């Protein structure tokens, strides 16, 4: 029987980093092993013995693409331990900051990383040769997201203005004026992006996924909500560890997250969209329906459209927040630290990001647990690859390899907090 093996080599020489291995025998996929994630154990260890105030800035260093997500999960978890509630305009500013990060992260992925796959280009440089204006639009949109993060976060990368209880400094109403004009342009560009991605060619591919995301009574979720799924899960964030587990798998040092007793699950834009379509702004809903998406989308390849809808939502939501903004009297809620345990999930661009901290009387961190979205999606990516390769088994090697990469990119795996990226090649036996 003819046996074919798809292997992925890592670019970086880092022990324990990414690899993909697919073994095909005849027309059957015999084995899929994916290892793209390193758990942030180093950071969990680094946090031990530090004062709680340092957690947002230390964890922000885990990822250059989604530092805001790490900051948000950290502050919410610690605030839960301290019994602190952040409301009003400070809460709105946190949502605004998250809008900036979603715009940056999603635009980078849609334009620079994912779109070339669908249009048959090896990378964005080649795409830019034929479509310079489209790529320039993506860069400009991303820059607008940067502008939000810079204004609120204090600087473009690794924002430093977030603290437990709120911010170190909050902007004046005046400071938002110039930003609002940029955001209006961005909202129009995002609408164009939804239309543009909707007409890309998509393979037919669907699985019976369990989507997991936050659900809030009134909002498309960023910082708060219950953890729900399309298969009946509905729990408070504090019950996360009762329902989810990280399993060691034989083929790698990495951990695979599972829903206990149920297995793989799917987090990220597609999960959020499918569980919260009714919470999108009317403009984003209309654009999604106009792009041919229903309120539920099961094809992970179409996540590029869903990401574009979320970019549109983020611009729309950012404008809503800015228009209603009144500078708060205090940049943060004051409190006295005490011993406690707190946990939080927020919606990072790639899906739910769980943090838990145990603190002593002085507010020193005794231990910390961090579960990023890419570790949670790892098992479902394996499952997609298995099914996708079965379905596309007769494709020429080069194309099959390309499409495997594309199937991985559907999840925008955070190569930053996960691993340096991979190069694929196929070996035949």
């Amino acid at each position, binding site marked *: 029987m003819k046996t074919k093996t798809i292997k992925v080599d890592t*670019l*970086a*020489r*880092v*022990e*324990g980093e990414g690899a993909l291995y697919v073994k095909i025998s005849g027309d059957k996929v015999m084995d899929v092993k994916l290892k793209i994630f*390193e758990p942030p*154990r*180093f*950071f969990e260890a680094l946090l031990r013995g530090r004062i709680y105030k340092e957690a947002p800035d230390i964890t922000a*260093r*885990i990822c*250059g*693409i989604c530092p805001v997500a790490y900051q948000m999960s950290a502050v919410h978890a610690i605030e839960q331990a301290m019994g602190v509630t952040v409301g009003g305009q400070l809460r709105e500013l946190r949502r605004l900051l998250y809008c900036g990060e979603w715009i940056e992260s999603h635009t*980078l992925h849609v334009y*620079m*990383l994912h779109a070339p796959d669908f249009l048959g280009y090896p*990378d*964005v*440089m080649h795409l*830019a*040769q034929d479509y*310079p204006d489209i*790529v*320039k639009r993506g*860069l400009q949109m*991303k*820059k607008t997201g*940067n502008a939000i993060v810079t204004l609120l976060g204090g600087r*473009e*990368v*690794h924002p430093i203005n977030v603290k437990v209880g709120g911010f170190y400094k909050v902007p004046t109403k005046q400071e938002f004026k110039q930003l609002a004009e940029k955001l209006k342009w961005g909202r129009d560009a995002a609408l164009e992006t939804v239309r543009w991605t909707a007409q890309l060619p998509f393979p037919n591919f669907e699985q019976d996924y369990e989507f997991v995301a936050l659900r809030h009574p009134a909002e498309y979720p960023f910082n708060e909500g219950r953890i729900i799924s399309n298969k009946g899960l509905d729990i408070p964030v504090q019950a996360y560890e009762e329902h989810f587990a990280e399993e060691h798998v034989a083929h790698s040092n990495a951990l695979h997250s599972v829903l206990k007793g149920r297995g793989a699950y799917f987090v990220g834009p597609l999960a959020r969209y499918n569980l919260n379509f009714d919470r999108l702004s009317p403009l984003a809903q209309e654009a999604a329906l106009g792009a041919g998406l229903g309120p539920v989308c099961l094809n992970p390849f179409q996540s590029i459209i869903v990401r574009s809808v979320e970019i549109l939502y983020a611009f729309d939501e950012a404008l809503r927040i800015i228009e209603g903004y009144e500078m708060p009297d205090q940049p943060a809620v004051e409190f006295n630290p005490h011993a406690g345990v707190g946990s939080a999930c927020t919606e990072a661009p790639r899906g739910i990001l769980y943090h838990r901290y145990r603190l002593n009387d002085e507010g020193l961190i005794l231990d910390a647990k961090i579960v990023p979205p890419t570790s949670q999606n790892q098992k479902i990516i394996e499952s997609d690859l298995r099914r996708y390769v079965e379905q596309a088994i007769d494709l020429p090697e080069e194309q099959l390899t390309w499409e495997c990469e594309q199937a991985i990119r559907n999840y925008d795996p955070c*190569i*930053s907090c996960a691993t*340096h*990226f991979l190069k694929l090649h196929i070996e035949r036996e």
Partner: protein
Amino acid sequence: MPTNYPLILLIGIGNEYRSDDGAGLAVCKELKIKKLPGAQVIECGCDGAVLMEIWKDAKRVILIDAVSSGARPGAIYRFDVHTEQIPLSISFQSTHAFGVAEAIGLARVLEQLPPYLIIYAIEGKNYGNGKGLSQEVEKGVQQIVELVISEVQDTHQYHIPI
């Protein structure tokens, strides 16, 4: 020497929590202490798109980054992006899929490369999680600091045209 120096951006790239990937940032820390006239030092743990934004209006840019090519750890390379081909064997360390190489490639296509762009690269040894540089890379960092200082001084002294 003229007193109105042309501005040179000195951009160090990297992640200090990825061991030798922090080499570019270590160079920046040293350069900041030196307070070179006419030079602005920027530490960048950013993706390539942000990098393109940082250098957008700059005429003269020197980038410092860690690479892996299989050479001796601590080895130093210098490339003039406009006149030299960067060997394919060199891979810029990046924790992002859109990193330095992609930023240079895309900026070239979109005609957004700074007119004077030099890269100093240093061969890393260990890119695992953790803080601190390998001994060999630490030495290389000191060498790059000296080279960049003298490059900045030469640019000012000889009015090196763009």
